[in-house]
Structure formats: C-alpha cells, structure tokens
C-alpha cells in the first residue's frame, strides 16, 4: 500500500443523540482510489461529513498527512486540502455554473491559480465551458454532477471525497462521470469514493472498505471482494 494520506482512529460521530459512526478505523493511501461501500443508512455519508467537519467527532481522531483534522472547523478542513463533493451535489441553484466554480475557489486568493484551475476543469469537463453562464438550478442531473465535481476541483485540494457520484443518473451518464473520476486518479489525485453500487468500481479501486453499522467490517481489493460472494450477497444484495 502507498503511504497513507488520511487516517481515522476509532472515530465516533453522529447527530443529536444518535451515534452513526461507532468507532471507525480507516486508512486511505496517497494517490490511490479508495472506495467505501455498504448498505444505505450505515454511515457512508456521515463518514465524509465527519471528515469535512460538518458533523463533529465525539471520540477518536482524524488526520491528514499526520495533521489532526477533527479539531478544525469545516472551512479550515477545506484549507488543509480536503474536498468534499456532497451527495446530491448541493450546487448554489441561483448562481451560474461559472459562479459555482468560483465559489469552489473561495479560499484561493491568487487570480493566477484560479484561472489555471478553471482552465483545467474546463478541459476535463468541456460541457461546463459551453454552459458556463447557465444558472445551476436549470441543469440536468448529469450536468449538475459535473458542476459539483468541477466546483470541488476548483479548491485545488489534494484529497477528493465524492459521495455517490452515480446517484440518480442514467447509466450512460454514470459512465461519463466515472471516466472523469478515473482520469483524475490517473493524474495522481487521492480519491475517497462512497458508492452503493460496488461492481462499478471493483476493478479500479485500490482498496475497498465495507461500512456496516458505523464500523468497517471488511477491507480488501476488488478481486478479493468478488471471491467472497457471501459478503456481496449479505451487504449489497447483488
């Protein structure tokens, strides 16, 4: 395994009175595609929200390249280089694509690097360039997803977290989105991917982690997961 970039030790977190993550231990490798799979309602989205600081850690610790994240505010976590592309995109509906992308670069003050990143995002997701002046609330599902990912990339972080990027999209659009994700990974970005549909990422992910009831129940590679049909059947209903 590559050197670790993100590390969780016994992390517990949740919402008012209900603990969702119940002692999660987890390591994501630098430059790798790490996938978290598992059934609905077992804490996958909460895991990402906890890392980005939206949900507070009640016990345990989270660190990025050895630096503690769990004591930071969400805006400080972003400043450390963690990008969270949330489930359902959460675009700013009244803003244009361009303004959404610019919000992604909110913490970057040098105009030069913002322009450079914008160029890169437009190269990776050319559709956004064509529609840059369209208001985000009027985009189709696939365009919204692309805008969400592009907005995340504008932050210029080194650790990208994607929450179910295939959710609610037509299969052909899902393929396009995953092509982009795999491109990013080959360009050397560290990616943490939450996905309900394990088959889609099995052969590409460097490691797969199964989240069950707020804890990691199994960790391994895609091929190993295929060799354990009972896991696939029990957790993912495939």
């Amino acid at each position, binding site marked *: 395994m590559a050197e670790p970039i993100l590390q969780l030790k016994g992390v517990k977190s949740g919402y008012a009175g209900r603990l969702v993550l119940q002692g999660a231990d987890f390591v994501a490798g630098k430059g790798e595609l790490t996938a978290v799979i598992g059934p609905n309602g077992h804490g996958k989205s909460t895991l990402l929200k906890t890392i980005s600081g939206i949900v507070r850690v009640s016990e345990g610790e989270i660190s990025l390249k050895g630096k503690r994240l769990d004591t930071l505010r969400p805006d400080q976590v*972003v400043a450390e280089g963690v990008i969270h592309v949330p489930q359902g995109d959460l675009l700013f509906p009244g803003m244009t694509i361009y303004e959404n992308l*610019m919000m992604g670069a909110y913490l970057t003050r040098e105009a030069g690097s913002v322009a450079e990143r914008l160029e890169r995002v437009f190269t990776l997701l050319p559709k956004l360039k064509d529609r840059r002046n369209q208001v985000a609330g009027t985009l189709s599902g696939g365009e919204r997803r692309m805008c969400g990912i592009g907005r995340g990339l504008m932050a210029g972080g080194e650790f990208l977290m994607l929450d179910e990027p295939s959710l609610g999209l037509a299969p052909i659009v899902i393929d396009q989105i995953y092509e982009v994700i795999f491109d990013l990974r080959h360009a050397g970005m560290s990616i943490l991917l939450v996905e309900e549909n394990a088959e889609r990422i099995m052969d590409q992910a460097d490691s797969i982690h199964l989240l069950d009831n707020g804890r990691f129940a199994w960790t391994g590679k895609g091929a190993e997961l295929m060799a354990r049909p009972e896991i696939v059947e029990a957790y993912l209903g495939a």
Partner: protein
Amino acid sequence: MDVVIQIIASGLTLGAMYAVATVGLSLVYGSLNMLNMAHGALLTLGGYMCYAAITHLGFHPIFGLVAAALVCALAGLAIYVFATLPLLRAENFETNIFIATIGIGAVIESLMLKSFGPYPIPQPLAVSGSVVIGNVHIPLQNIMILLTALVAMAAVALLLQKTRAGRAIRATSMSRDAAQLMGVRVGQIYAQVLALSGGLAAISGVMISSIATLTPVMGGDPMLKAFIICIVAGLGNVYGAVLAAIVLGLLEAATQYVLGVRWSFATLLLLVILVLIWRPYGLFGRQQVVRL
C-alpha cells in the same frame, strides 16, 4: 394628471423607505432563517442616533447618518454575538431567536424612551424646498429620500453580485452546508449580514423619521410593513423584496388618496392574504424543483 404625479411621488418615497427597511430583514432571513423582530427597534435606534449626533455632538448631517449606520451595524453585530451565536448551538433556533429578538427590541425601545423621552422629536436631517412638476410640489426631502435609498440599494446589489464577500453571502443563503464545504466561514457571514442589516435599518429609520418624527415606537409600523413586503416577495428574496416594496409603496399612496388613509393598512393586509392563497411561497419565492 396632477393627482397621478402626486401619488407616484409619494408612493415612490414610501416604497424607497420600505425597500431599505425590508432588504435588511430579507437578507437576515435568507442567510440565517432568522426573523429579526428587533429590526424595528434598530430603525428607531438609527433615527435617534442620527438626531443625537447632529444635535448633541454637532455632526454634519451626512456624518450623522453615517454615525447612525455605524452604531446600528454594531448593534446588529452585538445581536449576533449575544443572541444568534449561543442560540445557533441549541435546537429550535428559529423559534428561540424570534422570541429573543422581540426581547432585544423591547430593550432598545425602552432605552430610547429613557434617554430621549416619549415626546416626538423632529429629525434634524432635513432639506427644505420643493420641485414643481405640473402643478404638484414635490418636497426636496422626498427626492433626497429616494436618492439615498437608490444609492443604498445599488451599493447592496453591487456588494452581493460583484464582491467575494457578497458571493459568499449569497452562497450561504442558498446552501449553508455547501458554502461550508467551499471553505466559507459561515459564522463570519452571519455577523456580516447582521451588521449590514443593522446599517440599512439605520438609514431607513433616519429617512422615515425625517418625514414623520422620532418617537420610541416609530419602528413598529415600518417593520410590520417590511414583514408584509418580505412575505409578499417570498422570504429571503432580496431583489423581489425591493420590487415588492416599491409596488406596495405606490399601492399605499394610491389607496390613501382614493379610499382614505385608514384603508391603506387594511388593503396591504388584504393583499398579503390574496398573495398567500395564490402563491404561498410569495411572488418571487423559491419553489424548489429538483431534477435528477
């Protein structure tokens, strides 16, 4: 024809004053989901501060207005630090802050009563003279109010549309979580919005008291109307609020002329009821449609 000019002139003046009062209320609701019941008291505070700065401290009227805006911006900031911030950490924020700001408003109004007494005081920030259009005399005071309001609105629009801070305010009002994920420190945004809203309340209070007079309870009526305008426009929609304020100002002026002053408030209320039956989310309110 003269009547129409008269109605348009007073309607625009009313609308301009309401617009400035409403924008602050709407901004705060849009970004924090906070109904600031102390907004009317901030208006009153602004009116008295301008008076005190000009009469007691000998400020030039323009600086009197600026001083009033600064004091009220600080008061808005104080509301953030002492009421909003602690209540945000607990549950039921929207109900709690609603009640808390009623209390803050009462405290501010009582302070004004104690310091300046219950009797009406004229606002020294006034210009005399008038312009004649047709056979109608339009006081320069009204024109000054309209211009001040236009400048204030233009400044707010510029801030929201063109600056980094303004973009962050809009982003926070559209999606707080997403704004945080972009690195926006939402606490700072809330503080900025409350300070801005306080400053706008002061400007509005000075304008209103320059046409009426200063009394400790002068904020109540404009705040009620600002709420009506907010609801008609759709809570939290700033640009809709400006438009609705001007339309309602014109409507109020027309009602006062045609039916008499006592009907003007009833007409406004009737209009709110009709709007809420027809479009419960307000004329320009967000009706969220999510496409997958």
